[in-house]
């Protein structure tokens, strides 16, 4: 069981690392947000599931395990709303990618409506 927990946590560390590298390397702020979602999903889920199993099987503390699981559910449910709000606010505020986008339907439709 300890091995399974270690594998889970190692996986999530790998995804968190990839996310950080992506955040540093991506060309503009929207792509950086995409990369940060990497950390927010698998980077966190691995640690949460690993911690859940650790509390359940090694520490034998069921109430701690339940709390960790609830934390994970809340995290998954609330996180995308923040991501969506940041992306929309950035675009409406006038942040534009440095690299040309292949297609920008949102900008076209916004201009039409103004």
């Amino acid at each position, binding site marked *: 069981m300890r091995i399974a927990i270690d594998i889970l946590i190692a996986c999530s560390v*790998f*995804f968190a690392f*990839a*996310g950080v*590298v*992506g955040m540093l*390397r*991506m*060309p*503009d702020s*929207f*792509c950086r*947000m*995409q*990369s940060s*979602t*990497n950390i*927010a*999903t*698998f980077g966190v889920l691995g640690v949460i599931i690993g911690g859940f199993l650790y509390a359940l099987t090694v520490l034998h503390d*069921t*109430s*701690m395990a*339940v*709390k960790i699981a*609830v934390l994970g559910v809340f995290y*998954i*449910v609330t*996180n*995308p*709303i923040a*991501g*969506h709000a940041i*992306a*929309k606010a950035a*675009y409406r505020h006038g942040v534009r*990618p440095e*690299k040309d*986008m*292949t*297609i*920008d*339907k*949102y*900008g076209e*439709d916004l201009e039409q409506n103004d």
Partner: protein
Amino acid sequence: MKKTTFPAFLSTALLIYCFWLLITGQIVAIFQGRASWEVLVAGALVSGFVSLFTARFFIHRNAFYLLAPKRFFSLLAYVFVFLWELTKANVDVAFRALNPKLPVNPGIVKVPADVKAEYGLSMLANSITLTPGTITMDIADENGKTNYYIHWINVKETDPAKAGDAIKGTMEKWIRRIWD
């Protein structure tokens, strides 16, 4: 603003009470026979009081909608469908970030949403945002049809319907099964 109906009040209160039991750890204590009745009663009072004010924001239709077995099991199945989509997207974006050439091709596409229910729409939007590589930026109604504007890190299709198939994958089918 809609009025608070009793079923809406009851379902919100039950949901809040469930989370109270989970977070205070009482759910485990009940099974082990050492629950403290003070905590249980305090939780019931607080959840009743809170849901008096919040029920009308959450429930607009049938309050015990999700408890129909077909919908409930679709929801459970959706967890695994979503985890599979999440895995694929995570691996894709992680290797994109670590690739020395950094193969990104960003753009914002417009994608039709074929879900009618409000909760289904927001659930699909949140699922899309949560998969790495796509972020929902806005939802707009246009001639009676609902559209998402989605920032996509690797634009393969610019046609709305085809891009929709590529982004939403199997998720939309399952969400329709849950909410519509």
